[in-house]
């Protein structure tokens, strides 16, 4: 895999405040990197530096081999960048704005019009091309921003919260677009919506306080939770007590937690000792003891919990 983006010890201070504190990471062609972190973690500042908007206080970033400190214009020409909130010139029409972007990107005449038509079709902007941007809905405005970022078919895309504030259908559209382009580009997407990471990203980086705290695929991150292999059994209230004592008796079970579930049922959450896989043992016990289980499933701990654990240090659901 070719490395397209190389962030090297990138730092940024605003006065005494260190917004980004030595971030290093690489993104290769074909990768969609989810850039996660709480608000104020330094995501936007990092992306702005890579996109050549802010000058780094230390370190640098290379995009397709070009250094953003030495050759910002070169980096900008290799990049498609969607700023947070996709600001665009409100008084211009959609086609006027996209034509302006195309001209700045060096396309003229027929080529310019062809590029604009291509992105207008690709993002479904056909109905609004002649409308001024300030009367468009949020979804359309975001699509104008995306259209602007992919107009020159850049090898690297940086999208700052591309689905923020969109309705579920629009989110789905944006994600399919990202997935569609993923194969031939390197894409960085910042978000704090974790389902998005599972939906579109091949890899996730969690940052907080300007530092990288975790880097890996969604499932790698999930294993960082202490209770990531828990099994849940849902069963009627009446049978709960007996079943719980059966499960506790098993050698590899660490603890059983009881929580109320729907329809008068009870959920038993069974955590293993160490990293043992409990599924087979639990389902055998259910069959042997004739426990009237309604559901038995592996509790895939959510990325939200991983996120909370990593960024605040709080162990999730410890009291559950």
């Amino acid at each position: 895999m070719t490395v397209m983006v190389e962030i090297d010890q990138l730092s940024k201070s605003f006065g005494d405040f260190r917004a980004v504190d030595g971030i290093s990471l690489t993104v290769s062609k074909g990768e969609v990197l989810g850039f996660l972190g709480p608000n104020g973690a330094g995501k936007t500042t990092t992306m702005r530096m890579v996109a050549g908007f802010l000058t780094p206080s230390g370190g640098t970033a290379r995009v397709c081999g070009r250094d953003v400190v030495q050759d910002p214009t070169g980096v900008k020409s290799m990049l498609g960048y969607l700023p947070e909130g996709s600001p665009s010139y409100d008084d211009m029409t959609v086609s006027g704005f996209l034509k302006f972007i195309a001209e700045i990107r060096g396309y003229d005449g027929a080529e310019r019009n062809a590029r604009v038509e291509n992105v207008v079709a690709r993002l479904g902007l056909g109905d609004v091309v002649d409308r001024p941007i300030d009367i468009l809905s949020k979804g359309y405005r975001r699509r104008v921003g995306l259209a602007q970022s992919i107009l020159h078919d850049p090898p690297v895309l940086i999208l700052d919260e591309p689905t923020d504030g969109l309705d579920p259908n629009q989110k789905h559209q944006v994600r399919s677009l990202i997935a569609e382009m993923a194969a031939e580009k390197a894409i960085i997407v910042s978000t704090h919506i974790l389902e998005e990471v599972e939906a579109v990203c091949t890899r996730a980086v969690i940052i907080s306080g300007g530092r990288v705290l975790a880097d890996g695929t969604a499932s790698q991150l999930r294993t960082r939770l202490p209770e990531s292999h828990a099994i849940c059994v849902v069963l009627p209230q009446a049978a709960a007590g007996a079943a719980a004592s059966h499960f506790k008796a098993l050698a590899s079970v660490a603890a059983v937690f009881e929580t109320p579930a729907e329809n008068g049922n009870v959920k038993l959450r069974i955590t293993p000792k160490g990293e043992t896989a409990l599924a087979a043992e639990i389902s055998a016990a259910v069959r042997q003891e004739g426990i009237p289980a309604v559901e038995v499933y592996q509790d895939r701990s959510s990325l939200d919990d991983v996120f909370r654990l990593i960024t605040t240090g709080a162990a999730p659901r410890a009291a559950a």
Partner: protein
Amino acid sequence: MRKIWIIAKRELAAYFATPVAFVFIAIFVGLTGAFAFYIGDFFDQNQASLQNFFSHHPWLYVLLVPAVAMRLWAEERKSGTIEQLLTLPVTTTQAVLGKFLAAWLFCGIALALTVPMWITVNVLGSPDNGVIVLSYIGSFIVAGAFLSIGICMSALTRNQIVAFILGAAVCFLFTMSGLDMVLNAFRGWAPEAVVDTIASFSFLTRFDGMTRGVVAARDFVFFFSLMAFWLFAAILAVDTRKGA
């Protein structure tokens, strides 16, 4: 150069996207005429000359030019489009020059619409058209110098009103600095060289020469180096404050 022109085209179109541009032009044309007729006693002079028409231009520019310049960067920062603009493959210098060029052309259009005054004096008498051409050029250059101040002030803030007030204040100082009212305040204590330096910054004195038909290279050098200075300051201001 091409990128500067693309940005200038967009900016110029942005001026005319709202009726404000037309209101501005109407005010400029109306006021230059009114000043010439009422304050300058255009008819009572009994002269076929536009000197009384041009002599009020710097005063009008003090208020009108900062109004043209105030939105150039303040609005970009307020709406966040500065991030869009400066992540396109353009340099800050190209962006500043493009915006400056657009604003200057806009002032040029407003100035060009006062040509009926020129026609009027030609109908009424036989003025020195060479002096009038020189005065138009001079007026255009003075507008450019004020604009370079205005664009720098606009780059310092995200608030257009603040940009306007700062711009008008600095332009006012440059206009006033040749008047005895200002110079007398310094004459009592400052060395003569200082007083002369302050006087030499006056737009009024230099522009007055042009409206009388005096072509002095040093006046052009003065105005163009002033523009270069303020534009350079504007580029620095955009670069250092864009993320704030």
